[in-house]
């Protein structure tokens, strides 16, 4: 079977480190981290380390709000059943019951997609284009400030956010939403690749975002999963993760005009079938996903030039991930974890880290792993301690999360 090539048209990272991929990559090259200590009682009773936007940061300008209001008062007329549905019910309910403006989560999605789509020639209004959104918790912070009601439940639903974002850009197809814990971002790329391969669409705009709220901070604290300092991926002294917020977008296409661009070559997902909140003891299942992704990409293991690891800096994740990388025969491949720059950005992580690595392919420069000093995993891995100039053709991006989920994707020239 001949598999269609899926090209990366463009991308964006919208994070506390910068509003474009270029801004972000410059910060990483200068070894600037977004992670710092925050003392914000609205998020946590005790100070904690995270990569967060400034409280007064503006993500999209007010003209966007105007367009949004126009949409609600005068929805598009279209023939599709989905769009008819989109026009009635939920949006009106939202308008009447809660608030008119976009939430921070929706603003992040819109800001990231807006930048990504600039000057690409990809038309969001084209029937051949699909919007894919990945997030773990979307608008969950509303539960902290609003009383439970049917209107609140509709406002929190990710399909409401997806419709608002789709309407903002005029996407014609019903947006696809993936919420699969911390592999959501990688899974969104894999899902987009498969939809394009199958010929169902020509272009996929894939955007992931998560916002850090008290809901999330308290949960990770209750799990004792947060580090009380900057996180230390794969290090002997690692004690936990830092959280982070942000968004990232990848635009994929099978259109031959993008031939020569970097490609999403293959991907796979697996489940540990072991424990809900603890990773596999062996790493066999992530190793299986890695091997399947490499097979799907139709390349050899030795063709992987570097690995963008999940590397959350929890004791168990990094141990499992190193085992898996060893089992997959990739222990000598240079590897980084970007969690020391961005924190764990949850549903955005797979996208943010893939976009950084795509930039690494373009600039032949692998970003280092802040926080790492001395290897602290049983199965050795080759952690990048400083930026590394290499001629790289392909990288592997891995992710694992609650529910025993693992994902791996191969992206290359």
């Amino acid at each position, binding site marked *: 079977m001949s598999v269609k090539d899926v090209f990366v048209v463009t991308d964006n990272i919208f994070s506390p480190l910068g509003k474009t991929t270029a801004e972000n990559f410059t910060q990483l090259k200068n070894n600037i981290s977004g992670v710092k200590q925050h003392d914000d009682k609205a998020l946590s009773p005790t100070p904690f380390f995270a990569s967060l936007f400034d409280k007064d940061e503006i993500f999209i300008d007010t003209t966007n709000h105007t367009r949004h209001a126009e949409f609600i008062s005068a929805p598009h007329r279209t023939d599709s059943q989905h769009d008819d549905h989109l026009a009635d019910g939920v949006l009106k309910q939202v308008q009447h019951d809660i608030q008119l403006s976009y939430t921070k989560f929706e603003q992040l999605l819109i800001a990231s997609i807006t930048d990504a789509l600039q000057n690409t020639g990809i038309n969001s209004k084209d029937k051949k284009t699909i919007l894919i959104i990945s997030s773990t918790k979307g608008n969950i912070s509303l539960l902290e400030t609003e009383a439970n009601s049917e209107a609140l439940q509709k406002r929190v639903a990710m399909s409401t956010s997806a419709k608002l974002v789709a309407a903002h850009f005029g996407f014609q197809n019903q947006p696809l939403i993936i919420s699969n814990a911390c592999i959501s971002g990688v899974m969104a790329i894999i899902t987009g690749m498969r939809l394009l391969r199958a010929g169902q669409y020509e272009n996929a705009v894939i955007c992931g975002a998560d916002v850090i709220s008290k809901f999330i901070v308290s949960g990770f604290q209750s799990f004792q999963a947060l580090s009380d300092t900057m996180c230390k991926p794969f290090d002997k002294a690692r004690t936990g993760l830092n959280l982070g917020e942000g968004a990232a977008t990848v635009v994929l296409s099978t259109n031959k005009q993008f031939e020569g661009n970097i490609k999403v070559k293959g991907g796979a997902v697996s489940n540990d*079938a072991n424990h809900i909140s603890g990773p596999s003891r062996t790493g066999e299942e992530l190793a299986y996903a890695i091997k399947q992704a490499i097979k799907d990409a139709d390349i050899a293991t030795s063709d992987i030039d570097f690995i963008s690891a999940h590397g959350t800096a929890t004791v168990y994740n990094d141990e499992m991930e190193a085992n898996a990388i060893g089992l997959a025969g990739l222990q000598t491949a240079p590897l980084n974890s970007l969690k020391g720059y961005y924190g764990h950005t949850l549903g955005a992580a797979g996208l943010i880290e893939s976009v950084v690595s795509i930039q690494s392919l373009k600039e032949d420069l692998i970003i280092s792993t802040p926080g790492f000093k001395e290897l602290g995993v049983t199965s050795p891995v080759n952690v990048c301690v400083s930026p590394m100039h290499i001629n790289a053709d392909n990288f592997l991006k891995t992710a694992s999360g609650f529910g025993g989920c693992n994902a791996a994707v191969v992206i290359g020239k």
Partner: protein
Amino acid sequence: MDNLSKLGWLAAEILLKEGFKEYNYQPEEVGVVLANSNSSLDNDLKYADTIKEFPSPAVFVYTLPNIVIGEICIRHKFKGEHAFFIQDNFDAEFIKQQVNYLLENDNLQACICGWVEVLEQNYKAVLFLVEKKKTEKSLLFSAENMDNVFNKD
């Protein structure tokens, strides 16, 4: 286990009770593709209540919709491809396309798919077992057949 996981877990028990031969498959050959419209909101509301007093890790872990997939995978030792999608309404055509891709490309040999939704007093689970071999009881795996089952009272 939260209510969403309990519902999905139980529905899978009933679905697989008769006629499913786990020994026909390697763990990696069986997958789970599920969707719902309210994610884990039923449990999220409960977790949000615990924050006021003492945040509960046992409740927090179920604040993700894909945990029900994890529970089904643990119970039946399924280690294959899986995904959780959020949809306004059950989109049988989309689920069919996703599952067909995984079966046709040999990512999977069998797949559990469908809808598992819980929010406060309302719940609904409709699961399908999709295998490549036709059996006496089996229906053709189509969006129409799934919709017919889904819309039955």
